[in-house]
């Protein structure tokens, strides 16, 4: 939670702070600038002042010196000193002296005789004293006018002594005039100087002895440390009586005095006593050997600046105060609209959407006021809209609630029903479990292998027999795709997956059965290969397509069948051998050259026997052929064949059989030429041969046999060729019609006209024709003739890799 500081306070504080900051900066700048400038100025002032004062002092002292000198040259004084010193003369001298001391410059003014004894003085106490020890006397006696600062023996007061020798008319020095200036030089001469106020002024001699000081603690001290010689000299001179003349320690000042070059020496001085920074000016008082030393503390020197500084600070502070009040008050005016806005916002958020604010300040706040109002309008509208929507939704919701309530009630009913169902389901489950076990039992007891495939040809169910036949475990079978574990062969060729009967069951939706004749083999993924017979049927359970495959290992049957077939083969061949010997012996018998010739009758019998044996050969051949066809071992090798040409060659093979009976054969084809079709010539040849043989035998002599080969159209593009042989012969009676294709069946009229017929020919024809997918039938009228028809698909015969061809040579 931030502390809420009002805007107004912020502005005020900011303003005040700015003033403070900038004011401080300004003050600082001004102060330092002023300070340094003032300092320099003050220094210059001091210099000037000091020079002035020094020259003033110098001038005053010079004047004092001149007066004394003038007095020394007074004739009266000279006369006085030349004569004896008498009191009357003395009085006149004293008057003269006091005349010269009209301004009270001297205190006193006196005259010393050549022995140094005061003969006349403004101060009568002086008279008679011996001042010969004084250097002003001794020097004067040497002819030098002197100026010297001393502390008077008599008065005990310090003063400046000016002496001048009195020279007699003959040129000898007869006395000394001495004038002591002892007035407070400082006060007198240096009055009104502003320097006095804040600093100190000293007048020193060349030794640095402070002869005058504005400060009492500096008087009669030495500026610096005096050397022993100087001390001795001074003491010997009795200049300063017994004053200790302690050093002030102002070594720098002392140095300045000692090395004074004549121009004022101004320097910064750190006062060792007060530890203040001072500006010191040292200047020689002209025409004297005195120095004027002015000490001014820097602080007081630039005191005015300080005052300015304080003034500025106060000004800043005042302005800060004033501003803060001013701003504080005024800001309220400017910010008033803000608080109005704030209030308005509060009102609106409280829900009073009609509240509007009026700000006429003509600035950003005014704009804000406008915008606020706009916003309030929009808010009001959307709120109103929202309220409406909410109201609608609420009523919707209530309606929904009602329906939910209803549904809840329904749900509860449903719940109850479901619970019931669950109960039933449980008992059903138990039933199903029973039935499943039952089923398992059945499956296990089946004599054949069983698969159930799903629509992806995966085995979902198998029975124990299946496992046994395939020599695989259930876990190797279940879930696997059938093509993964079994490869289908027809004869020696692998059947591709698309051609597999299992696939066709699904795609064509019909039951497919395969037995020994289909010649299917299964090879398991383990390598076990066996002949297989199966029935596969689609099974849709609850929309799920499955396939049931029941299968058997036909090995035993195949072996049996093969045995049987080879039996037929072998048997027929075994039968032929004795027949051959019968035929051959009859032949040789009839020939007559190997045995005795036969009589006619004997020959006749032998011939009949021969014919019978020939018939038997025919029967055996036919049986052999039929056996081949029925065993499914028939090889079919279709080659492109022209049926008309084949017919011609078959006719040719009959030799003169047709000519013998004066039968004419006409062969006609529609279209001409016929399309070439894939035909096994042996198979087709056998059919044509058998039918032609019948035509030859059952048609009348002198009749016409018409062979008609027509290409025709069946339904849905199943085009075929219809081959017909029409004869004019004995025909087939009604009661024979249904049995004409039976093995060994001979119609009565046929028996009578062709006794040697075997009754097998048509049976073979039927087997062969139907084997290639054709149809065989006849039209006949007894006594008129017969037409036999058969069809062959335009696609011809399917190749079949059988073991034997139809031809029996």
């Amino acid at each position, binding site marked *: 939670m931030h502390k809420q500081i009002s805007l107004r306070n912020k502005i005020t504080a900011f303003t005040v702070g700015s003033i403070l900051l900038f004011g401080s900066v300004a003050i600082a700048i001004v102060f330092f600038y002023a300070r340094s400038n003032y300092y320099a100025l003050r220094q210059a002032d001091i210099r000037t002042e000091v020079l002035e004062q020094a020259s003033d002092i110098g001038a005053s002292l010079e004047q004092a010196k001149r007066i004394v000198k003038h007095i020394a040259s007074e004739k009266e004084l000279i006369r006085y000193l030349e004569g004896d010193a008498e009191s009357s003369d003395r009085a006149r001298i004293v008057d003269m002296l006091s005349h010269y001391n009209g301004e009270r410059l001297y205190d006193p003014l006196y005259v010393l005789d050549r022995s140094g004894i005061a003969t006349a003085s403004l101060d009568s106490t002086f008279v008679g004293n011996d001042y010969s020890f004084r250097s002003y006397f001794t020097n004067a006696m040497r002819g030098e006018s002197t100026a010297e600062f001393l502390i008077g023996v008599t008065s005990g007061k310090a003063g400046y002594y000016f002496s001048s020798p009195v020279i007699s008319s003959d040129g000898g020095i007869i006395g000394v005039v001495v004038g002591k200036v002892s007035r407070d030089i400082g006060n007198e001469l240096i009055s009104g100087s502003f320097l006095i106020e804040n600093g100190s002024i000293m007048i020193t001699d060349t030794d640095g002895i402070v002869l005058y000081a504005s400060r009492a603690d500096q008087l009669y001290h030495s500026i610096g440390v005096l050397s022993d010689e100087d001390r001795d000299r001074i003491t010997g001179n009795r200049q300063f009586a017994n004053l200790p003349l302690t050093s002030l320690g102002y070594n720098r000042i002392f140095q300045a005095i000692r090395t004074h070059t004549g121009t004022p020496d101004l320097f910064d001085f750190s006062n060792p006593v007060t530890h203040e920074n001072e500006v010191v000016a040292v200047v020689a008082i002209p025409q004297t050997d005195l120095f004027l030393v002015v000490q001014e503390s820097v602080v007081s020197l630039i005191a005015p600046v300080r005052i300015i500084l304080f003034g500025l600070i106060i000004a800043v502070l005042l302005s800060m105060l004033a501003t803060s009040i001013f701003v504080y008050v005024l800001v309220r005016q400017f910010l008033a609209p803000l608080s109005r806005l704030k209030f308005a916002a509060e009102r609106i958020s409280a829900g009073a959407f009609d509240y509007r604010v009026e700000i006429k300040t003509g600035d950003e706040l005014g704009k804000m006021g406008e915008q606020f109002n706009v916003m309030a309008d929009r808010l009001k509208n959307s709120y109103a809209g929202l309220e409406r929507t909410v109201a609608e939704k609420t009523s919707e919701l209530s309606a929904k609630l009602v329906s939910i309530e209803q549904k809840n009630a329904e749900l509860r009913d449903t719940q109850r029903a479901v619970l019931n169902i669950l109960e039933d389901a449980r008992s059903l489950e138990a039933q199903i479990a029973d039935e499943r076990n039952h089923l398992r039992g059945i499956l296990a007891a089946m004599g054949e292998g069983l698969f159930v495939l799903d629509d992806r040809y995966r085995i979902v169910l198998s029975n124990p027999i299946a496992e046994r036949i395939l020599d695989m475990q259930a876990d190797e079978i279940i879930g696997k795709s059938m093509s993964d574990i079994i490869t289908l062969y027809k004869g020696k060729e692998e059947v591709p997956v698309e051609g597999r009967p299992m696939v066709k069951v699904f795609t064509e939706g019909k039951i497919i059965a395969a037995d020994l004749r289909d010649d299917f083999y299964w090879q398991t993924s383990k390598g076990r290969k066996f002949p297989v017979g199966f029935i596969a049927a689609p099974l849709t359970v609850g929309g799920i397509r499955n396939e049931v495959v029941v299968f058997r290992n036909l090995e035993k049957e195949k072996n049996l069948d093969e045995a049987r077939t080879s039996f037929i083969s072998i048997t027929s*061949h075994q039968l*032929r051998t004795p027949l*051959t010997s019968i*035929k*051959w012996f009859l*032949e*040789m018998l009839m020939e007559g050259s190997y045995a005795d010739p036969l009589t006619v009758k004997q020959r006749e019998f032998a011939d009949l026997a021969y014919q019978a044996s020939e018939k038997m050969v025919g029967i055996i051949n036919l049986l052999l052929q039929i056996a081949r066809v029925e065993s499914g071992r028939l090889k079919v090798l279709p080659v492109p064949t022209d049926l008309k040409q084949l017919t011609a060659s078959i006719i040719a093979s009959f030799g003169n059989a047709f000519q013998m009976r004066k039968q004419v054969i006409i062969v006609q084809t529609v279209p001409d030429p016929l399309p070439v079709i894939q035909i096994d010539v042996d198979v087709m040849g056998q059919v044509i041969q058998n039918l032609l043989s019948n035509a030859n035998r059952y048609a009348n002599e002198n009749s016409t046999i018409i062979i008609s080969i027509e290409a025709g159209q069946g339904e849905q593009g199943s085009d075929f060729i219809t081959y017909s042989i029409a004869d004019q012969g004995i025909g087939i009676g009604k009661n024979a019609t249904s049995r004409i294709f039976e093995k060994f069946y001979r119609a009565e009229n046929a028996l009578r006209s062709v006794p040697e017929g075997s009754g097998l020919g048509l049976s073979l024809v039927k087997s062969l024709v139907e084997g290639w997918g054709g149809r065989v039938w006849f039209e006949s009228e007894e006594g008129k003739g017969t037409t036999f028809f058969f069809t062959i698909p335009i696609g011809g015969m399917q190749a079949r890799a059988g073991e034997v061809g139809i031809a029996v*040579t």
Partner: protein
Amino acid sequence: MNIDTAIGKKKILIVEDDSFIVKAYQIRFENDNFDVFIATTGTDALHYLDKEPVDVVLLDLMLPGVSGFDVLMAIRKNNIWKNVPVIILSNLGQTEDIQRGKDLGATDYIVKANARINEVADKVKRYL
């Protein structure tokens, strides 16, 4: 008759197990002045291969033990006998058998039941 001692006449070896057929062959070919030698089993036929080759062999296929095809193969492998005309005379009439016979080197193939004995004799003479 010893095959080695028979001279002048044409020699024919008949490999056949059926006695009736054998008898018929004997009568017929002796009539045509052949020296007829007979083997009733395949093994017997093979023994002949050690001897002088004949002029023609009539070979049946359905023999007990060693089959006619084996005999044919043996004949064709035999350096001395390999060029001897071998006519298969069998009642096995399937095209496969005929083809196999021809492949193994048979000179001709006749189905007994379909042929007259004179036809057989004519064919034999043709290959001499």
